[in-house]
C-alpha cells in the first residue's frame, strides 16, 4: 500500500515536471533520451574507429597528442608507426576530396587540379606531415567525422551552402593567385552572412613547421562555429561581432562553444598544443587554451571579464576559456554519473541550449538556456549543479541591483577617406563613417555587469554599421573612455553613416545611444545629426 501511494505520488510528480510549457517532452524519461542518441556512431567515434570509405593513414589528432606517440618525435619511423587508418566516407569525385557539401582545397576555391589530392592517391598524400596534401586528407577526415558526431547527438548541420576548406589559404580565398599567401598563423571560419550566393569557408593560414592543417582540433574548432550557426539557425547570436564589435559576451560564447566541441570530441579538455609550438609566447607543451583548470587567471570570472582602464575591454578568448571551464565542470559531472554516456548527454544538453539563444546573447542568457535545456532533456537533474558551477567560477549572474543609471557622454566624430588617407571630418553626410567619442561612468558603489553601448534608431536616414559594443563589467566608481583623433582610436566605439536619400527632405536624423547593463537602470541619450 505504502508502495502504491509512493508510485502514485511519483507518477504525479513526473506528470508535473513534464507538463509545464517547454519542459513537456514526448519522449519523457532519461532512458528514452539516451536511446535517441546514435550510440554506436558515438562509441566508434570515441575510439577513433572510422571504417567507412577509402582508407587513409593519419596521425590523429596530431603528432604531439597522438596516443601512439609517447613523446614528441618527428623521426620518419616514429611518424609512420603513429599513423592509423581512418576511412573517408562520402567522397564523390575523382579529382579532389569532395562531396556535394564539403570541398577541400589548398589556397583558394579555384585551385588547379595538380594541387589537389585525388581519392586514388591517399597513401602517397600522407607520407609527409608538412605537405599540404597531408592537410587536405586531415581536413576531409576531420570535418566529416565531427559532422557525423554532432548528427549522432541529434543535431543537423546547415548544408544550404557548400563548405570550402582551404588548408593553406590565400587572404582572399576567391582569388587563385598564390602571391597573396598570408604570413599569419591562424584559422578562420567565415559564414558569409551578407553574401548569400557565396559558400562558407574554413581558412587555415601559415606555411609553418607545425602546420595547423595537420591538427584535427583546428578543424573541429572552426567547424564548431558553423555548428553554432546551424543550431541557432543563423539567428545572429553574435550579430554584433559579425558587424565588427571588438568584444561582446556573445562573441566569447561562440568561441567557447567552438573550443568545447573540439575539447569534448577529442576528450582532451584542451586545444591547440600542436599549433602553439609555432608561437614563442606559449611555453613548450602548453596548449593554446584549456577547458581543464590550469594554474592561471582563467578560472575566475572577475579576472577575465572586468573592464580595466589600462587594458581596455576584456579579451574575448579569455572569457571564452573561462566559459569552457564551466562547461568542462558540467561535462565532468555528467561523466561521473555515467562513464559510458555521460559526456554525450552533456554535449547534447550544452548544444541544445545554443538553440535557445537570442540575437546578441549574454552569458546570463547562456546560463539560463543551459538550465532550461537540462530541464527539458534531463528532467532538470543538473539544475543545481549547473547553477553552482557558475557560482564557484565566480559568475555574479546579473549582479547586485544598482540604484543609479550609468552616466553617458557622447560626441560624434566623422571620418572620410581621401587619397588613401583617413581624415577626421564634420559628422554629417560627407563622412564615410561617424563614430562616437564616449565616456561611460558607474556612479554606484557596486560593479555594473556586462556594460553595453548601442545605437537605437528607426530612422532609415541612420545606417548603423557597428551598432553594439560591450565593455565587460565596470567596477563601482570606474569609467570607460573611448576618444582620440584617429580612426583606430574608435574601434571600441559604435558607428553609423547617414543616408540623405532616406530622410525624405528632413534636415536632421535622429537616434539614441543607449547604455545598458544587467543590473543598473538603462541610460538613453537622444542625439541628432545634420544631414
Amino acid at each position, binding site marked *: 500500500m505504502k508502495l502504491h*501511494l509512493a508510485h502514485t*505520488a511519483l507518477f*504525479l*510528480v513526473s*506528470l*508535473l515536471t513534464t*507538463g*509545464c*510549457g*517547454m519542459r513537456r*517532452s514526448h519522449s519523457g524519461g532519461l532512458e528514452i533520451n539516451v536511446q*535517441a542518441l546514435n550510440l554506436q556512431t558515438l562509441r566508434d567515434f570515441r575510439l577513433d574507429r572510422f571504417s567507412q570509405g577509402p582508407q587513409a593513414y593519419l596521425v590523429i589528432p596530431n603528432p604531439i597528442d597522438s596516443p601512439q606517440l609517447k613523446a614528441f618525435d618527428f623521426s620518419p619511423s616514429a611518424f609512420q608507426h603513429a599513423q592509423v587508418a581512418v576511412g573517408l566516407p562520402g567522397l564523390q569525385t575523382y579529382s579532389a576530396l569532395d562531396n556535394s557539401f564539403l570541398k577541400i582545397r589548398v589556397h583558394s576555391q579555384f585551385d588547379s587540379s595538380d594541387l589537389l589530392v585525388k581519392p586514388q592517391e591517399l597513401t602517397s598524400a600522407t607520407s609527409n606531415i608538412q605537405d599540404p596534401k597531408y592537410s587536405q586528407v586531415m581536413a576531409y577526415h576531420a570535418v566529416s567525422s565531427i559532422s557525423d558526431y554532432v548528427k549522432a*547527438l*541529434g*543535431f*543537423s548541420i*546547415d548544408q544550404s551552402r557548400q563548405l570550402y576548406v582551404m588548408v593553406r589559404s590565400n*587572404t*582572399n580565398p*576567391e582569388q587563385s593567385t598564390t602571391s597573396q599567401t598570408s604570413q599569419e598563423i*591562424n584559422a*578562420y*571560419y*567565415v*559564414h558569409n*552572412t*551578407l*553574401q*548569400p*550566393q*557565396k559558400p562558407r569557408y574554413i581558412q587555415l593560414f601559415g606555411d609553418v613547421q607545425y602546420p595547423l592543417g595537420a591538427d584535427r582540433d583546428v578543424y573541429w574548432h*572552426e567547424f564548431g562555429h558553423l555548428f553554432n550557426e546551424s543550431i541557432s*539557425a*543563423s*539567428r545572429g547570436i553574435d550579430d554584433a*561581432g*559579425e*558587424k*565588427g564589435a571588438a568584444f561582446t559576451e556573445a562573441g566569447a560564447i561562440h568561441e567557447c562553444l*567552438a573550443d568545447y566541441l573540439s575539447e569534448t570530441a577529442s576528450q582532451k579538455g584542451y586545444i*591547440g598544443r600542436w599549433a602553439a609550438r609555432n608561437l614563442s609566447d606559449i611555453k613548450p607543451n602548453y596548449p*593554446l587554451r584549456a577547458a581543464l583548470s590550469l594554474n592561471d587567471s582563467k578560472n575566475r570570472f572577475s579576472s577575465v571579464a572586468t573592464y580595466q582602464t589600462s587594458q581596455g575591454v576584456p579579451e574575448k578568448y579569455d572569457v571564452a576559456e573561462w566559459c569552457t571551464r564551466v562547461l568542462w565542470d558540467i561535462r565532468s559531472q555528467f561523466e561521473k554519473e555515467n562513464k559510458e554516456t555521460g559526456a554525450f548527454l552533456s554535449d547534447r544538453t550544452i*548544444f*541544445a541550449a545554443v*538553440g*535557445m539563444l537570442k540575437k546578441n546573447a549574454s552569458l546570463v542568457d547562456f546560463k539560463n538556456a543551459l538550465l532550461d535545456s537540462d530541464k*527539458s532533456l534531463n528532467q532538470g537533474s543538473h539544475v543545481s549543479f549547473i547553477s553552482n558551477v557558475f557560482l564557484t567560477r565566480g559568475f555574479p549572474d546579473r549582479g547586485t541591483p544598482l540604484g543609479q543609471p550609468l552616466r553617458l557622454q557622447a560626441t560624434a566624430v566623422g571620418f*572620410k*577617406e581621401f587619397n588613401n588617407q*583617413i581624415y577626421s571630418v564634420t559628422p554629417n553626410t560627407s563622412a564615410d*563613417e561617424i563614430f562616437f567619442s564616449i565616456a561611460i561612468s558607474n556612479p554606484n558603489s557596486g560593479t555594473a555587469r556586462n556594460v553595453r553601448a548601442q545605437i537605437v534608431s*528607426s530612422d*532609415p536616414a541612420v*545606417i548603423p*554599421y*557597428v551598432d553594439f559594443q560591450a565593455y565587460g563589467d565596470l567596477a563601482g566608481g570606474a569609467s570607460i573612455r573611448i576618444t582620440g583623433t584617429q*580612426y583606430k582610436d574608435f574601434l571600441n566605439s559604435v558607428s553609423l*553613416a547617414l543616408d540623405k*536619400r*532616406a530622410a525624405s527632405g528632413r534636415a536632421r536624423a535622429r537616434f539614441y545611444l543607449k547604455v545598458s547593463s544587467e543590473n543598473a537602470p538603462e541610460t538613453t541619450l537622444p542625439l541628432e545629426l545634420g544631414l
Partner: protein
Amino acid sequence: MKKFWLIIPIFLVWFLSSEKQVESFSKPSESVLQKETALSPETQPTQEKTPTPSEWWGVQRYHEIQTESFDSPLGRTLVYSFSQNGVPIIGMNIRLKERSDGALIEEENSYRPISEIPIHRNVLEEQATHLKSQSGRYQLDGLTADSLVILVREGLKEGELAFATSAVDKARPGVPTQLLIRSDDGKILRKSLGRKEF
C-alpha cells in the same frame, strides 16, 4: 501518510494550471489553424486544401520561398527566406520553432509584402563597373553584378538593390570586410567584419 493525500490534489491543480502554459505556447499554431479554416472556403470551396506558407503569411506571388530546417534534440527550427527573380532578400524571414512533439512554440515573422523591384541586368552591369572604377575608401575588386541582393531596412517601405561583395577597407587594410553597396549610388548599407578565429 495523510499528508501525501493532501499533496496529490495540490499537484493536480498545479498540473492543470501548467497545462494552460502549454496552450499559450501553442498559440501561433492556433492562429495558423484559424487562418487555415478562414482561407479554405475562399480558395477551395469544394476541396479541403492545406494552405501553403505563402497563403498563411500573405507572401506576394513574385517572392520565392526557400525553406531550411534545423533539428535539435529539443525540436526543430524552420526558416523561410525569400528571393525575387532569384535575387536573395536580406532583412526579412520567418522562423518557426517546433518542440520535439511538433507543437509550435515560437514564431518570428519579419516578412513584408514589399513591391516587386525591377531588375535590369544591363543597368546593373554598368553600375557595378562604375562603382569598381571609383577610388574611394573601399577597394572593390571582387564586386560583380551577379552578387546582387535586395535589402529591406527598418523605416523604409520598399527594398533596395545592393551588391554584396568582399572588399579591402583602406582604414583597416588587414581586416577582410564584406559590404552591401546600394547599386545606384554606392552607399554602404551594411558592413561585416565577420570571421571567427582559432
